[in-house]
C-alpha cells in the first residue's frame, strides 16, 4: 500500500514549523514549552503510526518548472527510525519539562531539539541521496548546538566542537561516496541519479542493485564507495576509532543524551548501513559473503562492539559508561548489517528497536540519579533502591536486557547476531571462527558493565551519599514508559517483530524478504549460538568478582601514550590551531595596500585566466587607421582633448603633493567628459562632469587629514606597486579591446529605437512603449530598470557600509 503524500509531508514539516514558533511559544508558556514540544512530537508519532504497513515512494512537486521534486520514501526501516524519533521524542520532551527546570536557554533548547527531530525524520524519509545528506548534516549541526548547550563551560565547547568536526567531516566523505555512486549510476542505469528508490521515470539505485554493483565492481569503485559511505556511518554512529566524540557529548543535558546520543542520531549511521545493505549484499538463499561490504562492516562492528565494551568497563561516570555502551551496541548493529546471511539483517533491525528501548530508559535513569543524588561518579553511588524504588525497577529491567539475559529483549537480537556470526564462521571455517569468538568476547564485557550499572541500585548505601530526593513525575513517567516498552517487547518479541522489526528487516534485506521469529522465552534446542549465549553469561558471571581489577587494568592500558585516538585528535587540532595562527601574519596585515594589491591582482588573474581558458584573441587596432577614424570623427578638437588627457595622466605620476595629484587627476576626468561631448553622448558627459566635480569636492574635504606631501619614494615599495599597477592597466586595456571588438546584435538596438520614443500618433495615455525621447534614460528606468534597481541598491549598501564601518566603528561591545 502506498503511503499518503500529505501525511509524510506533514510529518516532515511539523517539527520545523514547531521549531519556528517555539521562541514565541516560550514567551507565553515559559517552562511548559516542553509540553508544547511533546505535543508536536505526539502529532508526528500519530501521523507516522497512521502510515503503518505502507511502503513506497511519494513525490511532491516542488519547482515543477525545473523538474525539482521532494521525494519521500517509507518502508519498514524508515518507519522504525521515524517511530523512534517521534516516540522517544515525546518522552524526552516530557522528561525535559522536569529536568530542565530552572536551566538557562530553554527557548534555544526546545527549538534545536525540534529541529533535530525534524532532521532525523528527514533522514528516515529521504528517498534521495542529496536530501539524505542535507538532513544528515542538519542532525550534526543541531547536535553541535545541543552538546554546547552550556555555552560558558569549556568542556561543553570542546565536546561540541569535537562532535561537529568528526560527524560533519565524516558526512563529507559520505557525500563523496554519494557522488561516486551517482556517477557510476550513469553507466549502470543510463542516467545519472541520486535516487535510492525510483519514482516516475527516475530509476532507483536500490531497485537496480545488481546492475549498480556490477558496474562498481568493473570500475574498481566498489571498495571506495563502501569505505566512503562507511566513514560517514562510522563517524555518525561512533564506531572505533571515531567513537571518541560520544563520551564527550555527554556534556549535553541528559535528555539530549538519551534522545540524540543513544536512541536516534547515532542510529543515523546504522540506518545508513541498513539502507545501503540491499544495494551491496547480493540476494539469494545461500549467500554468505558480500564483496567489500562484509569485511568492512563486520570488522568495524565487531571491533567497536568489543573495544567500546571494554572502555565502558573502565568508565568512572555513569553517563560515560552508557556512552561507551551505546557505541558498543551500535557496533553490534553495524556488524549485524555487515553479515550477508539473513540473521545479520534480522539482528540489526531488531536490535535498533531493542537498543533504543533499553538504552533510552537507562539514560533517563542516569539523569534521575545524577539529578537527585547530585553525582554521576560510579564509585560514590550504591544502594539507591530504597531512595528510588521505581527507578530501580526500570533500571533492573533495562540492565538485564542490555546484558543480554533471557528472556529480556536484548537477548533475542544478540542471539540473532551470534547466529549470523556462527553461520558465517562455520561456512568459511579456519580463521573465520574468530568472528563468533570475538562476538562472545565483546559480549562478556557488555554483561560485566551492565551488571555493574545495576549494582548502583543494590548493595549497601555508602556513608558519603547525601539525601536523595524522589524524582518529579515528568521525569519518572517517560523512563517508566520506556521500561514498560522493554517489558512488552520481552514478553511478546514475536509480536514486536511482526509489527515493526520484521518490516525493518525486509527493508534491509536484498530482494524479497520473509519475516522471522525468535524462540521464546529461551531457545530449547541445543545449538552453537545458544551455547555462545550461555558461555557469555557464565564467563561474565565468573569474571564479575574481578570487575575492579579489570576496571583498573583497562584504565591503565588507556594511559599508554598514542594508543588513544583522542591523542591524535587533540594533537591534530593543536597543530591546525598553530598553523591557523600563522596565516593572519601573511593574509591579514591590517594594511590597506596589501588588501588592495591582493584584491586587484586576484581580479586581474581571474579575468586574464578567463580570457586564456575561453581562448579569446585580442583584436589589435589596425595600426593608425583607427586613430584616423577618430580624427575623422572628432577632428582637431578630439586630438587636443586626448593630448591634454595624456598630459594630465603623466602629471599625476610626477605630482609631489596630494593637491597637485588630485587636481591633475581631475584634468584627466574632465577631458574624458569633453570626449563624451565630442562623441555625442550628452548623458554620459553630464554624469562624468557632475561626478568629477563631486569627487574633487570630497577629495578636498579629506585632504586636510592627509599629509600634504608624498614623501620620498622607497624603491622596495615602488617596484611591487608599479608591477601591480602595470598588471591592472594591461588587464583593463585588454578587457576594453575585447569587449568593444565584439559587435552586439543590431536587433536589440533597433528594438530600443523602435519602442522607446513616443509614437507619431498617440492618445493621452500610452501603455505600449517607453514614451521618452531620451533613449538612454528610457533604457535606464524602463527596459533595464531591474539593473538600475540593483545599482541603486549597491549605492545604498555602500552608504550603509560607510555608516556602520566608519561611523559606528567605536560602538562595539567594549564601549
Amino acid at each position, binding site marked *: 500500500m502506498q503511503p499518503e503524500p500529505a501525511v509524510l509531508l506533514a510529518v516532515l514539516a511539523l517539527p520545523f514549523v514547531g521549531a519556528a514558533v517555539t521562541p514565541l511559544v516560550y514567551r507565553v508558556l515559559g517552562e511548559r514549552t516542553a509540553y508544547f514540544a511533546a505535543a508536536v512530537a505526539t502529532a508526528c508519532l500519530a501521523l507516522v503510526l497512521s502510515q503503518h504497513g505502507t511502503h513506497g515512494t511519494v513525490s511532491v512537486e516542488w519547482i515543477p518548472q525545473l523538474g525539482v521534486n521532494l521525494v519521500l520514501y517509507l518502508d519498514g526501516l524508515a518507519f522504525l527510525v521515524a517511530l523512534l524519533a517521534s516516540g522517544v521524542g515525546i518522552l524526552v520532551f516530557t522528561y525535559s519539562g522536569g529536568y530542565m527546570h530552572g536551566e538557562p536557554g530553554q527557548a534555544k533548547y526546545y527549538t534545536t531539539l525540534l529541529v533535530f527531530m525534524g532532521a532525523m525524520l528527514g533522514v528516515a524519509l529521504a528517498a534521495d541521496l542529496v536530501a539524505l545528506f542535507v538532513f544528515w548534516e542538519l542532525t550534526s549541526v543541531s547536535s553541535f548546538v545541543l552538546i554546547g548547550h552550556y555555552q560558558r563551560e569549556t568542556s561543553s565547547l570542546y565536546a561540541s566542537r569535537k562532535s561537529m568536526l568528526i560527524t560533519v567531516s565524516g558526512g563529507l566523505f559520505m557525500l563523496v561516496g554519494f557522488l561516486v555512486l551517482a556517477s557510476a549510476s550513469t553507466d549502470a542505469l543510463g542516467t545519472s541519479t541520486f535516487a535510492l528508490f525510483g519514482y516516475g521515470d527516475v530509476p532507483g539505485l536500490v531497485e537496480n542493485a545488481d546492475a549498480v554493483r556490477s558496474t562498481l565492481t568493473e570500475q574498481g569503485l566498489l571498495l571506495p564507495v563502501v569505505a566512503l559511505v562507511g566513514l560517514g556511518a562510522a563517524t555518525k554512529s561512533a564506531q572505533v576509532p571515531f567513537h571518541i566524540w560520544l563520551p564527550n557529548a555527554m556534556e549535553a543535558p541528559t535528555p539530549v543524551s538519551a534522545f540524540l546520543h543513544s536512541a536516534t542520531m547515532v542510529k543515523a549511521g546504522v540506518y545508513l548501513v541498513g539502507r545501503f545493505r540491499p544495494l551491496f549484499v547480493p540476494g539469494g538463499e545461500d549467500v554468505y559473503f558480500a564483496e567489500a561490504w562484509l569485511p568492512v562492516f563486520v570488522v568495524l562492528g565487531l571491533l567497536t562492539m568489543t573495544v567500546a565494551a571494554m572502555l565502558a568497563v573502565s568508565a568512572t561516570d555513569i553517563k560515560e559508561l552508557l556512552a561507551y555502551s551505546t557505541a558498543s551496541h551500535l557496533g553490534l548493529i553495524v556488524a549485524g548489517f555487515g553479515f550477508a546471511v539473513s540473521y545479520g539483517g534480522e539482528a540489526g533491525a531488531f536490535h535498533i528497536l531493542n537498543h533504543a528501548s533499553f538504552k533510552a530508559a537507562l539514560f533517563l535513569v542516569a539523569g534521575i540519579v545524577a539529578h537527585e543524588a547530585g553525582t554521576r561518579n560510579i564509585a560514590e553511588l550504591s544502594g539507591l533502591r530504597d531512595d528510588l524504588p521505581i527507578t530501580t525497577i526500570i533500571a533492573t529491567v533495562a540492565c538485564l536486557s542490555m546484558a543480554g539475559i533471557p528472556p529480556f529483549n536484548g537477548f533475542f537480537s544478540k542471539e540473532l547476531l551470534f547466529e549470523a556470526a556462527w553461520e558465517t564462521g562455520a561456512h568459511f571455517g579456519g580463521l573465520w571462527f574468530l568472528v563468533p569468538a570475538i562476538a562472545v568476547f565483546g559480549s562478556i564485557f557488555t554483561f560485566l558493565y551492565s551488571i555493574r550499572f545495576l549494582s548502583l541500585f543494590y548493595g549497601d548505601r555508602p556513608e558519603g551519599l547525601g539525601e536523595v530526593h524522589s524524582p518529579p513525575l515528568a521525569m519518572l513517567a517517560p523512563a517508566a514508559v520506556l521500561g514498560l516498552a522493554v517489558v512488552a517487547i520481552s514478553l511478546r518479541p514475536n509480536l514486536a517483530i511482526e509489527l515493526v522489526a520484521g518490516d525493518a528487516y525486509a527493508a534491509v534485506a536484498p530482494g524479497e524478504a520473509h519475516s522471522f521469529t525468535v524462540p521464546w522465552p529461551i531457545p530449547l534446542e541445543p545449538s552453537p549460538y545458544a551455547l555462545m549465549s550461555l558461555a557469555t553469561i557464565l564467563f561474565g558471571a565468573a569474571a564479575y568478582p574481578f570487575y575492579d581489577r579489570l576496571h583498573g587494568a583497562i584504565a591503565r592500558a588507556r594511559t599508554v601514550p598514542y594508543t588513544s585516538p583522542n591523542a591524535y585528535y587533540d594533537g591534530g587540532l593543536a597543530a591546525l590551531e598553530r598553523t591557523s595562527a600563522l596565516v593572519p601574519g601573511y593574509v591579514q596585515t591590517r594594511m590597506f595596500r596589501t588588501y588592495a594589491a591582493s584584491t586587484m591582482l586576484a581580479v586581474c588573474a581571474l579575468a586574464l585566466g578567463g580570457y586564456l581558458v575561453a581562448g579569446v584573441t585580442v583584436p589589435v587596432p589596425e595600426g593608425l587607421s583607427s586613430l584616423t577614424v577618430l580624427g575623422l570623427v572628432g577632428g582637431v578638437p578630439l586630438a587636443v582633448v586626448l593630448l591634454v588627457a595624456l598630459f594630465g595622466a603623466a602629471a599625476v605620476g610626477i605630482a609631489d603633493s596630494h593637491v597637485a595629484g588630485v587636481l591633475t587627476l581631475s584634468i584627466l576626468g574632465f577631458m574624458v567628459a569633453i570626449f563624451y561631448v565630442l562623441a555625442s553622448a*550628452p*548623458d554620459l558627459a*553630464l*554624469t562624468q562632469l*557632475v*561626478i568629477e*566635480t*563631486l569627487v574633487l*569636492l*570630497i577629495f*578636498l*574635504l*579629506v585632504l*586636510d*587629514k592627509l599629509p600634504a606631501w608624498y614623501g620620498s619614494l622607497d624603491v622596495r615599495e615602488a617596484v611591487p606597486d608599479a608591477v601591480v599597477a602595470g598588471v591592472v592597466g594591461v588587464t583593463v586595456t585588454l578587457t576594453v579591446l575585447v569587449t568593444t571588438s565584439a559587435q552586439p546584435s543590431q536587433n536589440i538596438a533597433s528594438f530600443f529605437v523602435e519602442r522607446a520614443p*513616443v509614437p507619431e500618433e*498617440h492618445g*493621452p*495615455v*500610452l*501603455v*505600449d*512603449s*517607453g*514614451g*521618452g*525621447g*531620451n533613449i*538612454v*534614460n*528610457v533604457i*535606464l*528606468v*524602463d527596459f533595464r*530598470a*531591474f539593473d*538600475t*534597481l540593483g545599482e*541603486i*541598491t549597491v*549605492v*545604498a549598501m*555602500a*552608504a550603509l557600509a*560607510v*555608516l556602520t564601518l*566608519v*561611523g*559606528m566603528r567605536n560602538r562595539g561591545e567594549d564601549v
Partner: protein
Amino acid sequence: MSTDTDTTVIARTVVRVVVPVILLTAVALLLQGHNLPGGGFIAGVLTVTAFALVYIVFGREFLQRELLHVDDDGFLGGSIGEYGRTFTFGLALAASSGLAAIVVGELFAGGRYEFITQGVWFVYHVPVYHEIEIPTALFFDLGVYFVVVGALLTILAVVGRE
C-alpha cells in the same frame, strides 16, 4: 575641517548665488530626463554637489541648523539619520514602482508588464510649457534620485565627521 570662519567672502558669496542655480538645474534635469539628457542619477549627484558646497564653505553646523532644521547633533538622530531615511525611502519608492507596474499590468493589461512605463499621461495647454509628459517611470527615477542623494550625503557626512 572648514568652519564658519576660515572661508573667504568671495567663496561665500559665490556659493550663495550658485547653489540655488545648481538645485534648480538638478530638478530640471530630473524632470526632463525622459526626453532630454538628464535623469535621476545625474540630478541626484548634482544636488549632492550643491550640499557639498554649502558644507565646505559654511560648515556642517550651518547646514544642519539652517537648511535641515535639525538641532540634535546625535549620530543617527541628526542629519545622518535624515540622509539614511532619504535613501531608504528612495529604494522603497523605486522597488514599489516596479512592483506596482507588475501588479497593475497583471490586473488590467493581462500580464503585459514589459514596461515600467505602464502609462504616459500627456497634459496639454499648460502655460509656458504647452505640453507636459508625465511617465510613470518618473516615480522610479525619483527613487533613484533619492537613493543617490541620501547615500552620497551619508557618505559625505560620515567621512566629513572624521
